[in-house]
């Protein structure tokens, strides 16, 4: 699904990613953990193609394509979805308009017909129920005046609607209370499939109680310093990131 090799990236003149190697197979869930400033969000944004994140070395292969040559909108249509850490408020653009434009952009790209209004509304109602989002939110401006939890649920709604092969979740748990986290986790778990890979970027272990990953990687100072299975998260929770830092440098 995704193969990252020797990835280095610079943001505002500062090297943030210092050589990342990561293989994500189809159907797998990987969690990227690490202290603040380690480069977790940078990695997520580089995958989505954010401008001003300059890749200086390495490569990213996504389903046999060189991801770095694709514009952000093409990556999205090819099925790379980033659930934002800070979803953007867009006054004047209704949520339902964005959702319809997004799904039709993907369908058009795949050579499928655009959804008519009736089929779209039926689909969107079903997906909104999945993340327990009230209908009224569909007709409000994108994320405007939404609470932190509502914004994150809106991200998962978009993800559920678009059914992308590669889901990247950037600190989706930040700012969520326990109830909202359960709703978000339920939405994500319902998307688990042998054809879909999920990359979860998180600082804390708690989201991983609800979305259980197959692999965990620890990112510190722009490099993956340790990889393991889900038990690594528990170890981190007990001992903290400083332990792993020392452990890595000792090794």
């Amino acid at each position: 699904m995704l193969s990252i090799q020797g990835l280095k990236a610079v943001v505002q003149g500062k090297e943030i990613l210092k050589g990342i190697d990561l293989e994500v197979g189809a159907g797998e869930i990987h969690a990227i953990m690490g202290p603040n400033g380690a480069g977790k969000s940078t990695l997520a944004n580089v995958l989505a193609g954010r401008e001003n994140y300059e890749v200086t070395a390495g490569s990213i292969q996504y389903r046999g394509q060189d991801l770095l040559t694709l514009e952000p909108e093409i990556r999205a249509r090819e099925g790379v979805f980033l659930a934002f850490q800070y979803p953007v408020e867009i006054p004047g653009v209704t949520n339902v308009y964005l959702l319809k434009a997004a799904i039709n952009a993907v369908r058009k790209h795949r050579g499928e017909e655009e959804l008519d209004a009736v089929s779209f509304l039926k689909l969107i109602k079903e997906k909104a129920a999945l993340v327990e989002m009230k209908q009224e939110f569909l007709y409000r401006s994108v994320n405007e005046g939404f609470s932190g939890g509502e914004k994150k649920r809106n991200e998962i709604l978009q993800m559920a609607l678009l059914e992308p092969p590669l889901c990247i979740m950037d600190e989706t748990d930040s700012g969520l209370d326990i109830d909202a986290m359960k709703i978000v986790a339920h939405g994500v778990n319902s998307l688990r499939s042998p054809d879909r890979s999920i990359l979860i970027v998180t600082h804390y272990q708690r989201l991983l109680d609800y979305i259980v990953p197959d692999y965990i990687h620890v990112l510190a100072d722009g490099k993956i310093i340790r990889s393991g299975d889900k038990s690594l998260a528990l170890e981190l929770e007990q001992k903290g990131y400083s332990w792993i830092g020392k452990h890595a440098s000792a090794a």
Partner: protein
Amino acid sequence: MQALPDHLLAPGTGHYIEQFGQLNHCLPGNRDQWSRDQRKTSLARFGKIGFPTQKDEDWRYTPLRPITGKSFDLVTDDPVAADAGKFGIPDLDSYRVIFRDGVLDPNPSDLDQLGGGHIEVQPVSSFLDDGPEARKSGFGEIIGAEEHGFTALNSALFNGGVVMTLQAGAVVDKPIELIFISGRKLAMAQPRNRIVVERGSKMQVVERYVSAGPHPTLTNSATEIVLDEGAEADYYIIQTQAKAAYQVCGVWVRQAAASRFSCRTVTLGGALVRNNLCAELGGADAHCDMYGAYSLSGRQHVDNHTTMIHAARNCTSNELYKGVLDQRSRGVFRGRIKVEPDAQKTDAQQANNTLILSRDAEIDTKPQLEIYADDVKCSHGATIGQMDGQALFYLRSRGIDRQEAESLLTYAFVSDVLGQIEIDSLRRYLEKVLGEQLIHEDEHPGRE
């Protein structure tokens, strides 16, 4: 008849004074002594004060050379003959009044049918030539507050217009659409209208300015609107003229107690457009809204000059102008709010927000508050910003291409003003025109 010898005339006025000499015999009201006197007085004033210049504070940011450097010809016969049908807005059911280069076209304008019999409508010619003497004195009574040369020029040389009176308590069932078509090369159109909305009555008026061709034209309009007690009017000024069209658009409003007036000005076309909108809240508990939206590119220049005079207690006003400026376009906003000593409990809000899409675009924005009462609530604010890069990336990351995302965000920026348009067909039409314009601009090779 000239009041001044030629060498004392203000620069640029000679051509128009000459035209007056040639054409005054066929202008509306030429058979009426009072009207002839009014025109002569105005002409003398125009000859004396001339066109405004950038030395006038009120015109400081709007160079008028593109207008004053040309000699426009007032049209009295043989105006542009375009088919009025092609300027129709889909699904807009309205009473239509057509003007061609400023001249009222009686044929497609069904004046008798207008307003379902609740409105008395007359062309200015018959109003002035044959109307009752007593009512004539009200004609032009409020035009001229903040007078400048263009107002005097219109007063001297208006070539068409209507006088409409909506009877007390009447509600007009559909909008009245005044369509001003410009077309002849270097044509000067100077329509002059008077609208009286009597006590407790209600109407919607859509003024539309369109071009039948690519020629340079000048439209210098003057409209006065009088609202009696409890009257309501929704007024729209929709400017979609061609890129070589020049326009000075004047609307003066006087509101009696508990009346409500709302103006929405949408400017998408024209080379140089100056809008003078002036409302006086003259009776207690009146309310006035002024909304404006503009989207400009190339070297378009649009100057919205508003004046809100609170002259009575307990009135409210709300003003919001939003503009999108691309390429080398330039916007100007002047929002004057005057609160007179008797206007206690005034609540006046004003904002001007601009989205700048190019480093060569410019906005000059100037709020001007003059407050002479002590128990008032007034606020004003101006913001200037660029395309939100975060929002752009967010949309692109959902599969929407850059061009569509940019046009969506641009549209979204002015959407709260367009959302104030209560006539659905008109709003949809403007959304479509704006959308097409934004996409067209993206294909423009000169985009910076």
